[in-house]
């Protein structure tokens, strides 16, 4: 058994299901832990996590950020992925109803679009998903919902397609993604590893030939080092792996990151990401990706 997985199992058993060891039980860490366990053929261990996500699902189908906070509900996307992975791994349909409700909610949820403005570089008219209700569409929640909708067979849904366009539109000219903007008042924004990694994972099976995607992948390749923070490293590796560009020293980087986490107190969130990033099988997020990974 690999070390992050082993540690993840222990921390799950202790019911420390947060972003930090003492943090509140939160949907995103739980969903990623569920995905990590399913990717390692541990469906029975994943089941309580998927069930917890179903327990906190609201009557309208959304899943809030923590066990106590029903809003905002962007983790609905990750719960969808977790339920799908769990049912796929167990061969059951335990979460079929929860999934359907969540899909309906996701397709109804809309980030705010806005008329194009001269001082903003990205296409503000594109409709994606927001972090919080009644706010603008942002890159990362849009990535998460696009991943989820693709996984449940809604790849060609107009919302999914528009979400993909939004993700590509938000690539920086020189590569990489900011948390959302591309230019503000004429100035290009800064690229970030985590958001770029997630975006690259999301568009991995897309036929787009936009040159910025290649530049974003090159940016990720350049940025990774032993100093890269754990979550950023994991998302970058997921993105690069999905494009067949997993760096040769990926295992070394992950080992270094794990050692750092262990020193300062690992969390469910980080251990789940480390487990996933160490897994070559990315069938959990995208139906389309395994075809590419099989060539690795």
């Amino acid at each position, binding site marked *: 058994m690999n070390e992050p997985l082993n540690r993840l199992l222990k921390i799950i058993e202790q019911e420390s299901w947060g972003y930090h060891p003492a943090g509140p039980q939160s949907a995103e860490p739980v969903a990623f832990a569920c995905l990590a366990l399913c990717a390692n053929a541990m469906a029975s261990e994943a089941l309580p996590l998927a069930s917890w996500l179903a327990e906190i699902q609201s009557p309208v189908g959304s899943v809030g950020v923590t066990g106590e906070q029903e809003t905002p509900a962007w983790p609905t996307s990750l719960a969808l992925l977790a339920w799908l992975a769990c049912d796929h791994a167990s061969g059951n349909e335990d979460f079929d109803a929860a999934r359907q409700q969540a899909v309906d909610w996701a397709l109804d949820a809309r980030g705010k679009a806005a008329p194009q403005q001269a001082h903003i570089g990205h296409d503000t008219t594109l409709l994606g998903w927001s972090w*919080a209700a009644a706010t603008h569409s942002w890159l990362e929640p849009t990535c998460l919902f696009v991943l989820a909708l693709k996984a449940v067979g809604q790849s060609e849904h107009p919302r999914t397609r528009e979400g993909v366009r939004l993700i590509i539109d938000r690539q920086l000219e020189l590569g990489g993604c900011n948390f959302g903007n591309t230019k503000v008042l004429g100035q290009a924004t800064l690229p970030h590893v985590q958001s770029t990694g997630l975006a690259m994972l999301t568009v991995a099976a897309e036929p787009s030939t936009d040159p910025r995607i290649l530049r974003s992948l090159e940016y990720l390749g350049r940025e990774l080092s032993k100093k890269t923070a754990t979550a950023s490293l994991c998302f970058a590796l997921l993105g690069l792996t999905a494009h067949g560009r997993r760096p040769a020293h990926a295992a070394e980087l992950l080992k270094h990151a794990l050692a750092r986490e262990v020193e300062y107190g690992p969390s469910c969130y980080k251990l789940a990401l480390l487990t996933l990033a160490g897994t070559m099988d990315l069938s959990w997020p995208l139906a389309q990706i395994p075809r590419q990974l099989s060539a690795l």
Partner: protein
Amino acid sequence: MKQNRPQPISRDPTCEEMQRPSRRAVLALGGTALACAAGSKAVRWATAPRAEVFVAKNQKYDRGCDLEKTIQDGLLSCGYQRQQFSGKRVLLKPNLVEPCRDIPHMTTHPAIIIAASEVFRRWGATVRVGEAPGHVRDTEMALIESGVGEALRDAGLTFADLNYEQVGWRRNRGRFSPLRGIYFPQNVLEADYVVSLPKLKTHHWVGLTCSMKNLYGVLPGIKYGWPKNVLHHNGIPHTVADINATLPNTLAIVDGIDCMEGDGPILGSLKRMELLLVGSNLPAVDATAARIIGLHAERISYLQLAADRLGPIADDRIEQRGESWQNVTSPFQILDEVHLRHLRTTPDGPLVS
């Protein structure tokens, strides 16, 4: 700080006065009115909120410069006493909005954080450093890129990731925006004092970011997003004022040593000022900072809202300690944008595009 403003004194004129005012009556009335107006103004001036702001020059980040002493002197000269922090929980809130190792003048320098923590620790407080970076979900990345993580480890200080903590709701005491309440992280709710440790910077939307705007960073991303777009949609100046109105017991220690001008708060240029500001009233501190960098404090939107409700921003209501701001002023470049030009006190000063 709330004010019971004295109402202007008036009386109804008599019928006779209304029909045929004599010259004497006119003079008497005029004199009375003038006296009343002057008296009213004097009462308003005397009862209006006042605050002290301490400014220190020739400050540096290196160990040769005793930042701890400067901060301690600043706090004492603003009326604080060391005993009042004994046994209290102090949360230091630096600005780590979107750290990048190539732009160190974007974020609060670690030396300021460590020096402030040492002062409060010496005074018997339990000190914690907390931040909810507004533009990055990976808080560890923010700590690495800013150099703050390493400094905190070396100093044995605990960091609270305010983006992902348990949250609690508090009624919005400002009501400048339509928000009925505000969610705060546990470490903010439990703190006896929240110390804003901003970097002095221009801001491409509101002109200035200093101690008040820095408190956007105590709100949890898990509730408000990355960026905290809920706040933007409810008005940046209004929500800045709301957060400041709702948080009890705040004070400010401003990193004005290496500052940012031009396209702040992220992509601007380095402006070396070698200043440190301390104050117990954040609007007063920010108004002083605005004057130092060549902006009209009275025209900055969130200071307009805060004025007299949250604290004084008028120069004659702020008692300067240490250096006078007039002696250290040096206009910052600002973007050549319509919404910023009118903020400048030096209309012929530098603009950048």
